[in-house]
């Protein structure tokens, strides 16, 4: 067992990797120090350690901009994200079920239809999207955002679900059929629970996209009471001056929940990509 012993070389390697890992922490370091800097020092000495630590920055950032507090913005972000993800899971799994279990050509065509949806750049359609959503009264509120994101991300959800479902053995469904279950029951009682790993993947991937999106939320929510975290943060960036310490403090506040969620769901996340069904 000579090879498994802890040798000087292994120690060197370990130190190297720890240093490498530290590189990844540098942005967090700057995030933390800028967030607690006094206003002027952000411009005079942006990279240095703050001369005085101003924890009040967090309180001020929390008050938000444009009459929307960071707390409200956080709630708006949660509403939009949870709403979108729930709708995506429901619609995506059902659509993918039909596509994956359809033996006719239409199943394959529908699949291609959705995959094309992943490839097309939605930014090209932003002007017509804006005008049609505005005439529907869906600009500047959470429901409009949920509808928009669900439409944009459904192709990805369907793609992930369909891939997983194709590998799912038919036996469970056949057994349920023989056991006397109807179509709806087969899906919700048997198939959907078996999709749990990929449901977690869909939830995390789409959830992160929605949570982090800035472009669409700025266009559709700016100046409204429904503005979400990224938009609220952007409020600190004015026409003539940007209050970077406020932006950084707001970022600190906003990444906390997503970081907690990611640490909690990390294992599931991996499983969805790599795992299959274990009975």
């Amino acid at each position, binding site marked *: 067992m000579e090879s498994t012993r802890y040798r000087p070389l292994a120690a060197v390697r370990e130190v190297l990797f720890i240093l490498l890992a530290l590189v990844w922490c540098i942005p967090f370091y700057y995030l933390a120090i800028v967030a607690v800097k006094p206003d002027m020092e952000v411009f005079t000495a942006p990279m240095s350690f703050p001369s005085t630590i101003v924890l009040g920055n967090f309180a001020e950032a929390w008050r938000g901009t444009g009459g929307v507090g960071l707390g409200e913005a956080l709630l708006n972000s949660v509403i939009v994200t949870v709403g979108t993800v729930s709708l995506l899971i429901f619609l995506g799994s059902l659509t993918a079920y039909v596509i994956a279990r359809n033996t006719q050509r239409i199943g394959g065509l529908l699949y291609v239809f959705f995959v094309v949806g992943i490839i097309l750049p939605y930014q090209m359609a932003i002007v017509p999207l804006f005008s049609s959503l505005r005439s529907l009264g869906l600009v500047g509120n959470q429901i409009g955002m949920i509808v928009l994101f669900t439409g944009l991300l459904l192709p990805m959800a369907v793609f992930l679900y369909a891939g997983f479902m194709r590998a799912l053995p038919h036996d469970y469904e056949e057994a349920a*059929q023989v056991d006397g279950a109807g179509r709806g029951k087969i899906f919700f009682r048997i198939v959907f629970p078996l999709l749990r790993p990929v449901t977690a993947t869909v939830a995390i991937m789409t959830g992160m996209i929605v949570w982090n999106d800035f472009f669409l939320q700025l266009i559709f929510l700016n100046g409204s009471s429904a503005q979400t975290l990224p938009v609220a943060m952007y409020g600190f960036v004015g026409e003539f001056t940007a209050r970077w310490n406020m932006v950084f403090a707001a970022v600190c506040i906003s990444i906390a929940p997503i970081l907690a969620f990611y640490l909690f769901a990390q294992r599931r996340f991996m499983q969805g990509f790599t795992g299959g069904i274990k009975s």
Partner: protein
Amino acid sequence: MSSVVYNQVSKFYADGTKAVDALDLQIAEGEFMVIVGPSGCGKTTALRMAAGLEDISSGELSIGGKVVNALEPRDRDIAMVFQNYALYPHMSVFENIAFPLENQKLSREEIRKRVEGAAAILGLEEHLGRRPKNLSGGQRQRVAMGRAIVRRPKAFLMDEPLSNLDAKLRVQMRAEITRLQRQLGVTTLYVTHDQVEAMTMGHRIAVMRKGVLQQVGTPLELYERPSNIFVAAFVGSPAMNLLPATLAATADGLALVIAGQSLALPAALVMRLGLARYRDRQVIAGIRPEHLVPPGEGAATLPALRLEIVGSELIPPEQLVQLELWTEPLRTPSALDIVRDVDPVAAADLPRGSSTQPLVARCSSDRAFANGTADWGVVLEKLHLFDFETGKALGLSDSASAGGHGR
């Protein structure tokens, strides 16, 4: 409990392959019917058509006197046990067994009572709260059985339910399923590729090959009166010895000539099989391993074949003696095809083209055999003869070879 009747049921796919070809099969009320055959013979397709999981291309299938061709599986009132059990992994054993009852909209109380009843029959009481992944293979098998018996269906359909178990457990579950079926008296259709399972479990056996039903009968009927060389070779372990032979006329009547050795046929046998028509024609002779009598045993008048002993397998209390006959082995296209179906391993050896015909004899393990040539008695009363071209058994009326359709 109801009968299950296949009336000219066929299944063909878009590319023209016939998975099941005009299957006629009646399973009586309370009967345990085993469908057996090599892989790809259409037995599972036949079963899945009864379950409603596979469309019926033509013909009629009825359960309990009612044609079910167009019915959804859930409207057929049948229960199925799958090869890999298909237990719902996210449900407990209780929920798994209760699932079919839930669909019948029974009261919670009634469901609990019946699930517990089924669990008691199968010895699963203490496992009801567990998940399938925490159960052993045998226990999973029992849960699958529980899910089938709990709703008292018209028929059980079982698709190789024992093939995922180890050998010892398989023997145990074999007995258990048989006992359960006899106890509940539910019409059962059981599919397997294992002829030992078929022989031990079924009231009757249906042998299929390439989508065509070969023969239906009780295990003993199939063993003693196989209707063609496929059934003869498939049923019984070790398989029947099949040898090319000629029926020659002699002064006393007819004799069977195998590799130049002549065995005078008893007049009763010639009468019974109507062999006079086959005079001077080539036939295939079938001798079961237990009908080869070791040298020096049996009556002195027993006709004998001179065979070379090449080895022996001891499985006390019996042994299987490997013998060889110096002759061109049976190589008709249909015979080769059958060997491929019955024993793929042996088929791989065939092209090497030996000029000896292997035989196996079954006798007591008390005696040791030295390699060399010896005279082995042949119990001619138990001899099987088949047409050299068609492989059909000689002397069998057409009605006896049920399902063959004269093909």
